[in-house]
Structures are given as C-alpha cells and as structure tokens.
C-alpha cells in the first residue's frame, strides 16, 4: 500500500508540475494576477507531494519491505538503521527521487520567500522551475520507478554496495544535490529574464543569495566526497580527476564565476548578458554531470545500473534544456540593454579576469572529461586522461587566478590604481616570499615548484587579511574607530576575505600533502616494526570482530612518535557475506594538520600482512579550507542587504568606499 501511495503522489506531483509549467506563463503574458499566483500554490503543493513520495520510499527501506524491487536490490534486514535510511538514495532510482525532492524544495523556497519579486518574474521563474521538475518526474516515472514491486517478495535483500555503507553516504549526496540542483534557480531566473526581455541590477540581487546557497552546499559536498574517497579507497588520494569528480567540479567553477559576475551586475549594472549566460551554463553543467553519472556512460561506483533507455532520456532532457536555453539566449540576449563603463584596471576588470580564468579552467576540465568519450564514440580508440593532463592545463590557469586574487578586492570600482594596490600588498608579498624561503629551508630542493605553491598560498592568505586590515584601518586609526569600522563593514566583505583565505588554505594542503607526503608499502609479520617520517608502527597482531552484517579482520598497530607511545591504529578489512565483497577500512591518526594513514592489503601465505602506510603533511587543510570557504559564503549570505527575498535597489554612487565592497 505504501509504495503505491508514494508512486501515486509522484504522479500527482507531475500533474501539478505540468499545470505550473503552463498556467503562470499565460498569466504573465496577459497580466492576470490570479493565474500568476497559482504558481506559488502549486510549487508548495509539488513539494508536499514529492516529500510524501520520498517519505513513502523511506518507509519501505526502513521497514525492509523487500517486495519493492529497489529495496530488495539495495538493502538488507541486518543493516544498521542509518544505512537502511541512507540506502534510499544509494541507488539510481532513489537518488533521482532525492534530486526532484531537492528541486521541489527550491521551488517551494522561491514561492515562500520570493514575496517581493515582481509578479511576472516570479510566475515565470516558477514556471521554468516546473519545466525542469516535470521533465525529471517523467524520467523517474517512465524509466526509473523506485516503487516497482516484486512477486513473490524475496525474504532477504541483496544488501547495499558495501563501499556505500559509510556515514559519508548520509551527507555527501544530499549536499551535492543541494548544490547541483540549487543552480536550477539561477537558471530559471535567467530564462525568465530572457522571456521578459528585461533585466536589471535588482535581478542580480535576487539571484545571488540562491546561487550563493547552492555554491556553499556544492563546496561542502565536493569536499565531503573527496574526504570519503580518501578514507575508503585505501590509497590515500584525495582527488583522482575521475570524470565523476570533474562532473561536480565543473558546475562549481561556473557557479563561482557566476557569483563574481553577479556582483558586477548588481553594483555596476554591467556584464548582464555574460551573467545570464553563466547562469545557464552553471545549471547546464549540473545537468551534464547528472547525465555523465546517471546514464551509465561512465563506469564508477556512482553509476548504479546500466539501462540504455535512461541514458537516452537524460540526454533528451539535456538537449532540450541546454539547447533551448542557449537558443533563447542567442535570440533575446542582444535585446538586453548595455551596462556601465569601466576601465580594464578596476574592480570590475578584476572580476572579469576572474570570470575569464574560471570559465577557461572549467573548459579545460570539460575537454579532459569529454574528449575521451567523444574520441571513443568517433574512432573507437580508448584513452585515459588523468592527473598529468589536468596538472598541465588546469594548474597554470588556477595559479594565475590565485596570483590575481588578492588584487581584486583592493581595486576601486570603475577605475583602479594598480600601483597603489601593489604597494598595499607589500606585506602580503613579504609573507609569500618568507614562506617560499622557509619552505626551501625545511624541505630542501626536493621539489622546486612546491615552495612557490606554498608562497602563493601564503600570499593569498595575507592578501585576504590585508583587505580587511585596510578597510577597518587597523594600525592607522585609534582602536575605537577601528572597532566601529569593523562593526560597520558589510558581512559580505568579511565573507569575501574569509572565502579567499579558505581557498588558499586548501591550496596549501594540496601542495604540501601532494609533494611532501611519504609512503611505505611493506609486508609485516606480527611483532615487526615499520617506521616512516619519524613515526614507528609495530604490528601487534590480527583479530576478528563481527559487525551487524560483516566480519572484520582487524590489525592492531602501536604507534610511537618521537620515541613516545601515542596510540594505536586499527585498520581492518570487512567481508560482507551477502555480496561476497571486501572493503578496506583505513585507520587514520590525526596529528595536528597532518595525518598518518594506514590501510591493509592481502594476508600472505607466510602469515605476513601487506600494509600501505602514508604520512600526509597538512592534508587536513584541504578540507578545512573548504569549510572556511563555506563559512565565508554563509557570512556573505547573512548580509542584511542580500537576505533572501528582501532586495532593495542600492543607492547609486552615494556609498562610501568601505561600504561599496560586497563581493
């Protein structure tokens, strides 16, 4: 009964979606308030029905109702409750349901918090949002119904893929989807603006909070996915340039560019056409990501099942939305009015620079991800494009971008003074140079490039601090005034500095862990000791433990650092009987920002066990930096002037320099 209820709720959501796709647009055309207001009601109702459908599926999983095909294929009665719950989206059908649930959350959000949007804009935005939603409801109902029944119902499920039986599954997909799908709002706003043929600074002010929220979730989602891969895959890598990872990085790059160009549009009424294009691209890349991951074009732990019909259906959605949006753009964009003038050296110029490099970097990732697929489709030759390709293409672009980053916030709008800014960045240059010197002193000539990477990271961090110091007049004005200025500084300015700082922290982690990490791969017998980078690990022995649905072989190691016992590490291998699969549970020991990483290999015939031991200096900074970036975004989002649904047209020109920055 419950699965049928969920199925029916989804059908109703589709019906509502179709109504919402058409009626508000007609309402906006003929200026009929009642027809336009219908969109808000149906958006909230859509959310209610999708939520009901999702709740129904969740109930099936939690109660282990194996008469439902997806539950049978992805669940097991012995699984801990949390995994019964998370396995709802640990498969293709359920994860698509989560996708539309989040889509409807955003739709209802616009309906509820978009109270002071112009009536026609709101109606059109919700209609476009509903086009996307209806396409995906259809996709689920026609090709990926999660509520299909099995007769007779099996007694026991086939269990969730053991790699997914991890707390990461509870956090990573929802966060990532909140990010992916959140860009749909920017997309809907862009399409609505093109339909109306009118766009102004207020538009950017409405779009920016949604984009910022999506960007925060995506940042955290990517970082979470990276950490999850790091500790479960057992080889200590945090980024593999896997197509599936790139699929999430591309919308992030486009979304970051969109955040920055929307600032120019909001403050200076310029870059309108470009901002619209970025809004379309960011969501298009999210759709491409969904296609790559869900269609079975790629093989990875993310592609759950291969059903060619699904790939074709998503491809059709992709062509329809991206093609349609770009056609509309080509037709309507030339009609949008041009914005204000600015010199190349100015805040706007710096933000254009940012956009140029971010989109180009995004393009290189796009080429690296899709070229192998295209080549195979056209010639049949199979190639793999991995780390070296991206280091050579993405790397230099990001380095140039990072170097320019501290300059941007310090430049004035319209016409900036590059010499003045360089002078103000002298301390930051000093910090960067000192970091390079220290890095060479400590690490020697082992790597020539890495110390410069460290220097660049410190330059950006010091640059972000300089920005704040300059604005509040620290070291120049009396403390009382400094405090007053700090309190008066817009939160979005703090957010900018903090987010830039966070990016540099991540970069520092990537450079250090990537360059100065050490590793040993050895076979050990009980009682033997291995040492690495000042740590000594002695292998105490193996024992077995029993988990709820697996048997674990646990190896116990005593760790000594600098001659003192500092704890034990217990990496294990779990064998899941239901799928005859083994997973590797690495043991991590956090030492400040550094980590010791230990994972197990095979047990050999002579009783020795193969281990991988890594020392990863500064590795924690990679994810810490992402969290800092997210916090910067949150601070910016809490800015009064940006509060969702409360945009007010900004005062022209009257603002003081300290209040101008709201990047």
């Amino acid at each position: 009964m419950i699965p049928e209820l969920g199925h029916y709720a989804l059908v109703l959501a589709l019906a509502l979606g179709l109504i919402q796709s058409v009626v508000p647009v007609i309402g906006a055309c003929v200026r009929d308030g009642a027809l336009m207001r219908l969109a808000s009601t149906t958006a909230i109702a859509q959310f209610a029905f999708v939520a009901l459908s999702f709740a129904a599926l969740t109930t099936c999983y939690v109660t282990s109702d194996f008469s439902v095909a997806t539950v049978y294929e992805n669940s097991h009665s012995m699984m801990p409750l949390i995994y019964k719950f998370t396995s709802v989206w640990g498969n293709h059908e359920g994860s698509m349901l989560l996708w539309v649930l989040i889509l409807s959350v955003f739709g209802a959000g616009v309906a509820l918090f978009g109270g002071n949007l112009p009536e026609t804009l709101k109606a059109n935005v919700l209609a476009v949002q509903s086009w996307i939603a209806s396409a995906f409801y259809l996709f689920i109902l026609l090709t990926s119904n999660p509520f299909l029944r099995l007769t007779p119902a099996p007694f026991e499920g086939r269990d969730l893929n053991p790699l997914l039986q991890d707390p990461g599954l509870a956090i990573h997909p929802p966060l990532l989807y909140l990010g992916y799908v959140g860009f749909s709002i920017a997309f809907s706003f862009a399409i609505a603006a093109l339909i109306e043929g009118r766009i102004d600074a207020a538009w950017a002010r409405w779009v920016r909070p949604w984009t910022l929220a999506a960007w925060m979730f995506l940042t955290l989602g990517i970082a979470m996915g990276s950490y999850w891969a790091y500790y479960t895959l057992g080889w200590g890598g945090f980024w593999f340039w896997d197509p599936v990872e790139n699929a999430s990085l591309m919308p992030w790059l486009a979304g970051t560019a969109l955040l920055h160009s929307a600032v120019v549009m909001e403050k200076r009424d310029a870059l309108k056409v470009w901002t619209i294009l970025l809004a379309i691209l960011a969501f298009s890349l999210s759709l491409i990501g969904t296609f790559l991951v869900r269609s079975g074009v790629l093989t990875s732990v993310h592609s759950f099942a291969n059903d060619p019909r699904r790939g074709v259906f998503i491809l059709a959605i992709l062509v329809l939305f991206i093609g349609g949006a770009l056609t509309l753009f080509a037709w309507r964009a030339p009609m949008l009015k041009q914005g204000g003038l600015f010199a190349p050296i100015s805040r706007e110029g710096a933000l254009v620079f940012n956009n140029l490099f971010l989109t180009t970097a995004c393009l290189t990732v796009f080429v690296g991800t899709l070229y192998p697929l295209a080549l195979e489709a056209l010639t049949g030759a199979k190639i793999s494009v991995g780390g070296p390709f991206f280091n050579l293409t993405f790397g230099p672009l990001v380095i140039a971008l990072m170097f320019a980053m501290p300059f941007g916030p310090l430049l004035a709008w319209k016409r900036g003074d590059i010499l003045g800014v360089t002078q103000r960045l002298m301390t930051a240059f000093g910090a960067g140079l000192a970091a390079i010197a220290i890095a060479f002193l400590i690490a020697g000539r082992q790597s020539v490039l890495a110390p410069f990477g460290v220097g660049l990271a410190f330059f950006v961090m010091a640059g972000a601090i300089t920005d704040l110091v300059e604005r509040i007049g620290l070291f120049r004005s009396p403390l009382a005034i400094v405090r007053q200025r700090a309190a008066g500084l817009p939160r979005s300015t703090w957010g900018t500095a903090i987010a830039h700082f966070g990016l540099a922290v991540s970069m520092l982690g990537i450079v250090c862990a990537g360059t100065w990490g050490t590793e040993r791969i050895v076979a050990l017998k009980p009682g033997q000791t291995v040492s690495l980078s000042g740590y000594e690990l002695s292998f105490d022995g193996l024992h077995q433990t029993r988990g709820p649905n697996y048997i674990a072989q646990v190896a116990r190691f005593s760790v000594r650092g600098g001659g003192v016992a500092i704890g034990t590490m217990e990496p294990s291998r779990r064998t899941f009987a239901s799928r005859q699969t083994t997973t590797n549970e690495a043991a991590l020991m956090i030492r400040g920002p550094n980590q010791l990483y230990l994972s197990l290999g095979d047990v050999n015939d002579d009783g020795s066990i193969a281990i991988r031991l890594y020392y990863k200096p500064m590795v924690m900074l990679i994810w810490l930096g992402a969290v800092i970036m997210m916090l910067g975004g949150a601070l910016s989002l809490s800015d009064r002037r940006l509060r969702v649904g409360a945009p007010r047209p900004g005062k022209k020109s009257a603002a003081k320099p300290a209040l101008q920055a709201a990047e």
Partner: protein
Amino acid sequence: MTRRQRRLILIGGSLGVLAFAVGLVLNALSGSIVFFNSPTDVAEKHLAPGTRIRLGGLVKMGSVQRGGDLRIRFVVTDGKSDLPVRYQGIVPDLFREGQGVVAEGKIEPDGLVADTVLAKHDERYMPREVVDALKKAGRWKESDSGFAGEKMK
C-alpha cells in the same frame, strides 16, 4: 576610454587567455594521455618499448606468482593473446585469477611493467574496457554481466 576600445581590450584579453588554454590542452594531450589496449592490440600494434598504456583483460587462471617485497607477476589475457605483467605493490581487494583487471604502465620487451593495477568495484561490475576487449576477442557471454533481477512492470 571609449566603449569600443574597452570592448577590444576585453575581447583581446579573452582570446589571449583562450589561446593560452588551448595551447596548454594541446600540449597536455600530446604528452599525457594513455591509450587503452587489449593484449591482442599490443600484439598487433608492435608498440615501442617505453610506451605507456592501459591494459585490460582477464587475469589468466594459474598465472599469478607472488615474490618477496610484494612483487607480483601475472598474465592478462583476452582469450586470443596473452601479455605478462610485472607489478610491485598491493593489488586491489578484488584482484583474482579469472577476473577482470586493468593495469597501467610501460611496455617493455618482456611484457608490461605496471605501476597501477585496478580491479572491479564489486561483483556486479566489470571495467567496461575489459568487457569491450573480451567482446572483441569473442570471449564475452552476456550471462557474465552478473545481475539479472526479476522485475515486474
């Protein structure tokens, strides 16, 4: 500065960055991509020693020999041709004789010296490259794909 000049600078700058990026991509594509080959491809193509490839196929039954220091030798086969592989390190959990494997490394006169060995993720899934290589060699049975659930409409 006029609108026209400003636009020229903008377009010039964009093209500059784009050209730079295209240069980087072409440079990287010529140097750092790796082609996928089956043992038959390797036998037919006469690759120069030192060429990096990804090799896919099945681990031949009875071919795995383990040595000291985590050294391992095995033979990858697609049913038509075989290629010996040398590797030092820990092989993946699902590395087994008769199972699909992808090895990446340099071609040497006596076989492949691998620096990466990948196996499949779980029992349902086999690397697509391996499936294709086996299909090409005529050794693929649909039943090998593993999962076939009884679904009802």
